[in-house]
């Protein structure tokens, strides 16, 4: 069986995901195209050797619809023979795309493939693709559907994280992201987004608020009180699944949840023989991959279980991992993960995360994979585990090791 290696990873900066964001006037296709062009150009890649491009995209409708991966391949002027496929595992789509690309390499289907993703949340709003879960009574009621924010607040309640705990985590995320930018830790992977003329339109993550303090967060009202306790009252539903909770403590708000942003990522993955053929040097080996289903109504506890699954596949223990990268969907998700696996804060999300920089749904997995790879190289560390919580109760994880 072949092995899969990461040769390179790029990401765009993340623009604010609203109509005043810098990337709102850039199409999703252009974001994906620029990421694909960047990874080609900086590696002098002969794209005829890229068998497939797998891109995550969570709202694949409108301009993001109809297999944006293949359309971006064409738009980026890749070889006509390079295929493209869009996939959706909600928030882990970008990482799942990398895992699928790696799986193609490992299985021998591909010698080289690109994983990554794209999401213009300002142009194609979250939820644009509909879906049965919340709407179809046949599944909504029996699976105790509640929105993610309610799930995040339920995690905080069930596992004992107070408003101060989640806010403190958010402040630290902002601080770490600011430091990482200041020290240029992202420079290796960031490819500035260019406008229609070719001028740089955004070169940094614009969602960050480095001056965030406990006091500034304290002024924000919790976001999910109304839908939890009044209309339609999701707390009463999640309590049917978690009857041990007398009430739900609503602690999350815009300041301690992932930001809505636009962006794209691309990760070049190939077998060993591609190193010889192209002269490129692999940066890391993918040593384990996993996805898992978890209880859907609380929705966001999957990372714990999928991390254990991936670690078991790799024959590793939690302490064997040098750096963890867990998408900061909500502060409580990371706090619960650290609590469950006994992970010290200085080993996880060391450059900040989506609370500070945003979470462009389909692209994030590829972004944080690149971020932690850069960080392993910068600090001379060996192993990293990347994971994300996923809608409808799932988790996806990847373990990488520098070579």
């Amino acid at each position: 069986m072949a092995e899969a290696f990461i040769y390179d990873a790029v990401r765009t900066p993340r623009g604010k995901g609203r109509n005043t964001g810098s990337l709102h006037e850039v199409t999703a296709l252009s974001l994906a195209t620029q990421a694909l062009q960047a990874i080609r150009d900086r590696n002098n890649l002969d794209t005829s050797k890229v068998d497939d491009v797998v891109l995550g995209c969570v709202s694949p409708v409108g301009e993001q619809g109809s297999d944006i991966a293949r359309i971006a391949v064409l738009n980026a002027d890749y070889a006509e023979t390079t295929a493209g496929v869009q996939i959706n595992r909600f928030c882990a789509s970008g990482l799942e795309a990398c895992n699928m690309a790696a799986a193609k390499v490992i299985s021998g289907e591909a010698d080289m493939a690109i994983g990554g993703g794209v999401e213009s949340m300002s142009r194609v709003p979250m939820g644009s693709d509909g879906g049965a879960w919340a709407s179809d009574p046949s599944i909504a009621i029996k699976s105790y559907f509640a929105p993610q924010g309610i799930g995040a607040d339920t995690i905080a309640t069930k596992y004992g994280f107070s408003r101060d705990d989640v806010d403190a985590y958010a402040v630290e995320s902002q601080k770490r992201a600011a430091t990482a930018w200041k020290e240029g830790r992202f420079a290796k992977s960031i490819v500035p987004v260019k406008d229609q003329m070719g001028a740089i339109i955004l070169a940094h993550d614009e969602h960050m608020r480095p001056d965030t303090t406990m006091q500034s967060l304290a002024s924000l009202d919790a976001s999910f009180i109304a839908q939890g306790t009044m209309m339609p009252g999701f707390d009463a539903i999640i309590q049917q699944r978690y009857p041990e909770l007398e009430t739900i403590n609503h602690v999350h708000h815009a300041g301690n949840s992932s930001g809505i942003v636009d962006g794209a990522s691309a990760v070049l993955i190939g077998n060993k023989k591609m190193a010889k053929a192209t002269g490129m040097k692999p940066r890391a080996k993918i040593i384990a991959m996993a996805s898992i289903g978890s209880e859907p109504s609380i929705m966001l506890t999957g990372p714990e279980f999928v991390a254990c699954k991936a670690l078991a596949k790799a024959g590793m223990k939690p302490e064997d991992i040098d750096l963890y990268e867990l998408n900061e969907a909500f502060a409580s998700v990371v706090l619960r993960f650290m609590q469950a696996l006994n992970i010290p804060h200085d080993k996880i999300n060391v450059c900040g995360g989506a609370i500070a920089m945003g979470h462009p749904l389909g692209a994030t997995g590829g972004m944080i994979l690149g971020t932690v790879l850069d960080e392993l190289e910068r600090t001379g560390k060996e192993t990293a585990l990347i994971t994300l919580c996923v809608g409808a109760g799932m988790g996806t994880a990847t373990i990488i090791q520098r070579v």
Partner: protein
Amino acid sequence: MENFKTNLDADGVLHIAFNVPGKTMNTITGGVMKEMGELVAEIKGNDAIKGAVLYSGKDNGFCAGADLGEIGGGSMDADKKLSEDEKLKKSFEQGFSLNRSLRALETCGKPVACALEGLALGGGLEIALACHYRVAADNPKIQFGLPEAKVGLLPGAGGTQRLPRLIGVMNAMPHLLQGTSMNPQEALKKGVVGAVVPAGETVAAAKAWVLANPNAVAPWDVKGYRVKDGPYSPGGGMTFVGGNAMLSKTTYGNYPAQKAIMSAVFEGVQVPIDAALRIETRYFLKNMASPSAKAMVRSLFLSTQALAKGANRPQGFDKYEIKKVSVLGAGMMGAGIAYVQAMAGIETVLIDQSQEAAEKGKDYSKKLLDKAVSRGKMTQEKADAVLALITPTTDYAHVKKSDLVIEAVFENREIKAEVTQKAEAMLGPNAVFGSNTSTLPITSLATASKRPKNFIGVHFFSPVDKMGLVEIIMGKKTTQETLAKAVDYVLKIKKTPIVVNDSRGFYTSRCFGTYVQEGQEMLAEGIKPAIIENVGRMTGMPVPPLSMADEVALDLAYKVGQQTKKDLGNKWVATPSQLIIEEMVEGLGRFGRKNKKGFYDYKEDGTKAIWPGLTSVVPTKIHEADPAMVKEYKNRLLYRQALETARCFEEGVITDPRDADIGSILGWGFAPYTGGTVSFMDGIGIANFVAEAERLAKKYGPRFKPNKLLKDMAKNGETFYGRFGGEAAKKAA
């Protein structure tokens, strides 16, 4: 045709008078369904007919819906030669017949209008909706609605499809899910009817519309029609996301009909009407096959109606005219009883130890009446007249000439004996003495009476003005005549009577008590209080067990326990839950809501939270509960109540399954979706019920042991309705 009388007028408009022979009110019988097909064929096939107007041949309304007696008695095809799939298809063919006829009416190519001079409910409204146009008489008392969900059914004659198409999904949902009705003006505003005209003019208006609209088709048959707020339309999504959530929140997924309605609408509005009607019929039949639907129709419709008409009154006694009733004790119960009596036009004497207390009891009525006046539900004159019927006093001389006395003093034998004797001294020989005790055996209370034949239990529920049930308890010496009089009294004050025989706690308090006790047993096992409470809600009981214990008052439970201890002597065995109550009351002075300290802490702002110190009384051992555990706990709470009901049958405390079912639902809110405690057991199947009870007994203790009656019934394959029901019930079971 028997049910439709037709007359073709000179303008070519067919006048169709809907008039089901032998029924006071039009209902949709098997005959109506059959003839609907013939009627449509006539309209379509006869070239002389230009259009049609459908109206009622009765003056009390258009149609009250399906004949639930027929539905309640029907059953799936039992032909053993058919495969499962063939049986399902055959049942669909039968179930779809009315939908097929109404769809044929809607697509007959000629305009059909419905003239509504009176109510149209359920299938009645659905027939009207299948016409191209509706015109209603301007009378705010007329009700239009689809109340099927209230008795566990779906509107199954196109209602789940035509109403959302006509007025939008969002507007239609409350009518479909909660059975909310509307009057003609509301119906006009929503677009359910096209016009409202003066009473008596609907047929003319309908005919005028028919002549003016020769090419009428339903809006959904116009090319390009789309439901405006379907699940994936802009703005429509939240109707379903929110609707599912609201449904789950309010019903805990317990009511199959509501879920089926949501699904029928969700799936139906995404496809053309013909497919939509098929979907509706499939959900209708699937729901009908659930034990819940049958049990709900039987209990919430058929039995409730029967009991409200005096089904359990012994025959052979003249109706007892009740003009004057004295109520002893002007506390919460006495005050409430005085109010419902006065509302029924009964001259009421309200007696207490002090004039002040008696006046305070009367003030309760004043408050309720003032509220009714301020809300425009009653005139000031009427309210004054009602209030004037109540005489608050301390003087037993006022009891004279009472037809009935209701004793509602404290649960203390000595006080009860004293007031009984005082009142009886004033009573005529035929007057009835009723005690509103909720726990003390009637036969023992009757020993204080000189006329135990006239002594009977008349057990009201709190708050009296809202609770529809009265439990009548026969003492050993109570006569059938006294019972007949008590039933007449209960019917006069517009409550539903059930009749039971004497026992500690009678039927309702005794069975309900097991629910509260089981909650405390669970607490004693170390199950986290929040789990007990949330599971209690999920059983469909109105109040969770620990909350209920606080409401009833822990010190009252304590006192009842002490009294029972005294009465039973050395036969008494302390249960863990009784020990908890003793600790809460004796040791900690936590009496429940009344002193703002019970299993909960009651805060100044009116909110409450489980008392954190409860874990020091009972350490928590079970901190979380997955769905399998929830199911187990739900069963514990429901089985206890059902097992106690079975014991009441064995002991002869209760004898009629209808009394048991209705008593459980109206008396203490036993999970209405089950149809009541008896239907709950019948629905599970007695053999299954016994097996599960035996499993629970092994795991949790002998309180779950099924009695001999249940085991016998399991062995014989019997049901409660089959063994204890009347002839009709036996047949249906």
